[in-house]
């Protein structure tokens, strides 16, 4: 059974897959409104209901769905890339044409492939000499490496390889641990003043601490405890206190406990 006759029941289309394909090519179904993921899911259901995998049909489906995806990507990007490179950007209708051209191209090389297979079949039973030249006729004569013929030297070499190397001491490598809860507490302390500068909050801190402090700041923002403003990219961040609604305080404290118990980076 071919891919063509598998039935779809989607929001904007209901019917066989090949009809959908035709309508898309004729632009009677808007590809932008078509959820291709739904088509794939429907196809997977279809495969499962059949209980066996027809590789030929599955391949055909994958080729078609990939072409549709590419077409849709082009449609979605067309607006944003306008003027960037008018020649490289394909109009949707040209993309449909290219889809057809590509199918024809593939067909051409499939025929060429059949020709190659015939050539190979015609040469069946023809063998070639597959022997190395006699040593004295080779252009480059490799001398054996010194000592490679001496079993004692070889034994010593392999012996060195077989003994386990000493374990590497990793004690000096400390894994820096910066608890989020600790940074949250630190920021809250600073917030009691009403506002503070982020640079000040992380003065002298290492990279990891800075990163976790940003994380803590986001956490405070999420809970409505802090707001911030940044005048320019990479500039200092001014953090202001923002009092959360009183009703949420109970919930916040419970969340704090959970954070203190488990949250560390």
């Amino acid at each position: 059974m071919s891919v063509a006759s598998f039935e779809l029941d989607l929001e904007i289309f209901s019917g066989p897959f090949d009809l959908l394909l035709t309508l898309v090519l004729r632009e009677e179904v808007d590809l932008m409104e078509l959820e291709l993921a739904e088509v794939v899911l429907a196809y997977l259901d279809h495969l499962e209901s059949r209980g066996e995998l027809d590789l030929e049909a599955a391949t055909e489906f994958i080729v078609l769905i990939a072409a549709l995806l590419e077409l849709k990507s082009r449609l979605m990007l067309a607006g944003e890339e306008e003027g960037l490179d008018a020649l490289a950007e394909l109009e949707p209708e040209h993309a449909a044409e290219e889809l057809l051209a590509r199918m024809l191209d593939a067909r051409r090389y499939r025929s060429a492939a059949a020709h190659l297979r015939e050539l190979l079949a015609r040469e069946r039973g023809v063998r070639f000499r597959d022997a190395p030249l006699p040593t004295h006729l080779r252009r480059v004569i490799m001398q054996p490496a010194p000592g490679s013929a001496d079993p004692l030297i070889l034994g010593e070499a392999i012996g060195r390889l077989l003994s386990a190397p000493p374990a590497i001491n990793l004690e000096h490598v400390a894994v820096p641990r910066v608890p989020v809860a600790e940074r949250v507490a630190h920021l809250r302390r600073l917030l009691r003043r009403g506002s503070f500068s982020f640079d000040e909050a992380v003065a002298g801190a290492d990279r990891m601490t800075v990163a976790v402090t940003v994380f803590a700041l986001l956490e405070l923002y999420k809970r409505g405890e802090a707001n911030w403003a940044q005048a320019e990219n990479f500039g200092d961040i001014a953090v202001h206190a923002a009092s959360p609604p009183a009703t949420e305080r109970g919930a916040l404290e419970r969340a704090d406990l959970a954070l203190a118990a488990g949250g560390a980076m």
Partner: protein
Amino acid sequence: MRAVEPQLVSAVEPQLVRTVEALLFLSNDPLSAGELAEATQASERDVAGAIAQLRLHYAPGESGIRLRELAGGWTFTSDPAAEEAARRLFSRTRVAALTPAQAETLAIVSYLQPVSRPEITRIRGVSADSATSTLLDRELIEEAGHSQFGAVLYRTTTQFLKLFGLRSLDELPEISRWDPTPEEQGQLRERLLRAGEARAEVP
């Protein structure tokens, strides 16, 4: 088999014929007339005469060995009549048939070389990774530098020409031979549209 010019054959020194024969025996790869001339210090014309004489000697039916012009040179091959016995002697089969994916990939490389894997994938519409690595393993294709975008480029090998019985890539038919006619193209498009309409009419 092409006719041999008699005046070429008679004019050649017997020793040159024997030397050329020995060189062809020793070499695994096809030897061009130029290479043979350089090695024997004879003229290319004399070498051509020697080869003409050897071709008589190794004509089909005369010997278990054939002398063939392949991959831009001359090389000995076995007589296909010996294949069954050869297969009993050497357990390995000569060359396995190509899968459709491998044949398609090989066709694209042979016509478009040097060509990159993404380009092969684009034409076939499906990934060519596994087929490409098998063809590399079988030494039918090889790497040929990098494209301007850094993708590895592939080309066919001498082994490819030998196994497919080709003197050179020029012996491949023009790819346009398999061009669909405008009618066929139109039919393909029409068929797509008609199939859709026929179904649309069914209530």
